[in-house]
């Protein structure tokens, strides 16, 4: 019941926001001091809404599993509507061309997972701890399980 409703909420958010991953946790310090590790970002990805410079986009690069959250630095739009752009992290001194796939100079719309719209600090720290310390995750699970078993009325 709980699992299925959580799944439904997630899928519903995917439909509403148009993004394949509507909520992401910031994993690196490359956008400090705006975003720190463990902050939560809410994304949208409406296709009609054009990408513009200064927006914070979450994009995937071929060969990297983890999406990157960085800001659009420059952008060129062709007459037929195709857009190419370069990103940069606020805390990095150079643009992201070194992070892209070998030979890749520009990002396009299909690389974008979403655009950051909302911000909530610290909340994602729980998931980071769970991923980095599997023992913590199992401890939490065991505690929850024991609690349910002991407190069943």
């Amino acid at each position, binding site marked *: 019941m709980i699992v299925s409703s959580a799944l439904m909420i997630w899928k519903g958010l995917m439909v509403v926001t148009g993004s394949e991953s509507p909520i992401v946790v910031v994993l690196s310090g490359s956008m400090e*001091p*705006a*975003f720190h590790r463990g902050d939560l970002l809410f994304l949208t990805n409406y296709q009609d809404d054009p990408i*513009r*410079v*200064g*927006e*914070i986009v979450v994009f995937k690069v071929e060969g990297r599993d983890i999406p990157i959250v960085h*800001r659009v*630095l*420059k*952008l*060129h*739009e*062709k*007459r037929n509507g195709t857009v*190419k752009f370069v990103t940069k992290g*606020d805390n990095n001194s150079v*643009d992201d*061309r070194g992070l892209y796939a070998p030979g890749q*100079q*520009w990002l396009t719309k299909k690389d974008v997972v979403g655009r*950051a*719209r*909302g*911000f*909530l*600090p610290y909340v994602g720290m729980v998931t980071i701890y769970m991923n980095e310390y599997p023992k913590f995750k199992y401890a939490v699970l065991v505690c929850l399980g024991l609690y349910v078993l002991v407190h069943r009325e």
Partner: protein
Amino acid sequence: MHSLLSRGNAILAYTLSVLACLTFLCFLSTLFVDYRTNSTINTVKVIVKSVPDFSASRERSDLGFLIFDLQANLTHLFNWNVKQLFLYLTAEYSTPNNILSQVVIWDKIILRGENAVLDFKSMNTKYYFWDDGNGLKGNQNVTLTLSWNIIPNAGLLPSIFAIGHHSFQFPSDYVQSRV
């Protein structure tokens, strides 16, 4: 009945819900604030060169150099739900090649509590102003606009354009010598 565990649990749950509620109220309290304000931009010197762009295509592309003045007072934009302003100066233009090009040539982070009165004279750009091709030479209409992205403590991340922009044109000849 009231074991240590259940008391702790109650306190923790109550703390978390109060924090969530306060955060949400903080977000609501600044939802309708108007963050626009004035800025004055001026260009002191503008030149354009034709240089191989080794960061991208390796072909000869137009590289613009400009020196600019910038004045704005952003002090009143800060409230209790503004952690940081991310300022960026965008050059926007159109070429036969691209209908819209936007290049950020300068940016600055202002944290709350730092000096938010900008008065820059004869500033160099922070990033190279590369065009995607050769569309800068003789370009008649390049618009500089200051914008800011508001980073809240919790809430939306709006991008705001300043009122006031500056248009300039690039000279119709390349500069050959080193600057």
